[in-house]
């Protein structure tokens, strides 16, 4: 299993860089990982809104919500979401939030 070092700690990730041990997630992980997902500078309040929303939904339902639901519930449009997470909500945002890679026919 590949490992990645972020802010001085080692994390197990899958082939695509998704965190494998979901309970190891912490805010420093997200902050240190942001650069690899093409986010410049520190994470803003808007980034955290998305990340916390994703984590909350995942804890409740075991999956990431559909993209349209993220936009609607957080009142941001798709364009803004991609501005915040240039590698995309399913990849970048979920990765920083410490969610598993999406599975199934999606």
């Amino acid at each position, binding site marked *: 299993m590949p490992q990645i070092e972020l802010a001085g700690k080692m994390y197990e990730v899958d*082939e695509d860089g998704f965190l494998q041990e979901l309970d190891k997630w912490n805010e420093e992980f997200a902050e240190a990982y942001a650069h690899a997902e093409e986010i410049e500078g520190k994470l803003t309040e808007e980034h955290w809104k998305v990340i916390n929303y994703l984590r909350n939904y995942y804890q409740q339902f*075991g*999956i990431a919500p559909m993209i349209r639901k993220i936009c609607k519930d957080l009142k941001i449009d798709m364009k803004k979401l991609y501005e915040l997470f240039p590698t995309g909500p399913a990849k970048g945002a979920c990765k920083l939030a410490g969610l598993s890679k999406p599975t199934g026919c999606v």
Partner: protein
Amino acid sequence: MKDLIKPADISKPSAGLCRIEPGDLATLPPPYEDFNATVLKPLPADKVKALETSLDDTLAIGIPKPATPEEEEELVRRFLSGLTKLFEKKNNWTFLQPLLLSMEHCARCQTCSEACPVFEMSGRKEIYRPIFRSEVLRRIYKKYLTPGGKMTAKWTGDIDLNWTAIARLAELAYRCSLCRRCASVCPIGVDNGLITHELRKLFSQEMGIAPKELHEKGTVLHLRAGSSTGMNPLAAKDSVEFIQEEMEEITGYKVDIPWDVEGADILLIHNAGEMLAWPENVGAFAILFQAAGLSWTLSSETTGYDAVNYGLWYDDVQLARVALRHADIARRLKVKKIVIGECGHAHKALIETSDRLLTGDLNIPRESALVTLEAIVRSGKLKFDPQKNDFPVTLHDPCNYVRLMGIVEPQRRILRQIAPGFREMTPHGVDNYCCGGGSGFAIMSGYNFTDWRNLVSSRKKFLQILQAFESEPPQTPKYVCAPCSNCKGAIRDILGYYDAEKRSRLYYGGLVELLVNALDGMKKPIILFGDEPSWK
């Protein structure tokens, strides 16, 4: 480089049996010439060191290299044990006969090679030739499992069975999308697709070797959580509730999606990926069924809201487990029939392949949604305005229910009635080409496999789509109708990879969306081209 690879080379250690060089792949027309020199990015050195990468430039499974010679021997022993089982009636009662026929008869006429999109698009790489893989297995079978085989191998074509050959064969079983176009053209009925399928079965059922997207994150997750997407019943209900709200907002039509209605006429089972990635498909079905006054329901029982059955592609045991669950849920709900949504392999798995499993009270009538949709259109209960679909449309034929099940015309009769800009691909119907995402390819994305799919296995489909619309100006939005979740995923990825939304204004979606888009009484269109509504 002249490609002189022979079946016997499969057991000879080397860095690789096939490399795609710039210019090898079939040529793309303008404005896509800049992709013509694109090849796969090399696999990282640590992967090459740790995994079995000696087949070609990509990895579908990523089998770890055995640590010791003893481990290798054990793997060879297990392969032979699995092979023996494939050829025994008690262990392979479902597929033994067609397998034996395909093992015994091949005239090497190469008709199949000309029909295979992977072989053609790759620049005719020997290892992707449909009979290459079959010939390797045929030689192993004859040498090791038929009487006197070791003696006659010298004349019938020898091959050494070692771990190198087996590891390559496992990966090679995932360079064919099981579209079975080859089988449909073989003059004597040899089925190279079936041989590939049997190989995948041997690896999964006997050796525990399968792509993680199909097994661990596929059928295992499906049976445990309720869906290969990981959705539990609560999540499915939450997603559908959201879709319900969205539909009203998007189209102005208020829809109520029924759950767990005992005694309904229809249990509709979608590929649950639709709920997350293509919610408008699920919403469009609900609008149409409600508008037509059908008695129908979804099931919120674990597995009952996800029609997928990845076992179809690699493992008969997993296939049976999922199929039995689907049928049993319908039995307990006391519905009159099951209708499978726009998902090709789910059609094949539950309607056809499981036929001999589903006996007695599990033998519930099972119908394709395309048939249900056509019945709605023909009933005359609903009015459609074809002018709302006044844009170029072409139709993709999902292999599983078109070539492999013969459901060819219902979708066409619908399109001729509601889509004035409909034109066929060349070729089409049972002769159409795979989207390149068949047999699980669309969801397999580890390492650089997605690139291999976009460059090689989906290339023919991309060329066909471009050709269908070649008379249209680039700025006109065009719709590729692909009534299958897997195909939609593959087509979405091709359009993204080749930047085709921007360059050719290509969009894609299902069939039911076109119906709802043209449905009388809708305040707004369900189909959008980017931000642009398809009608005003």
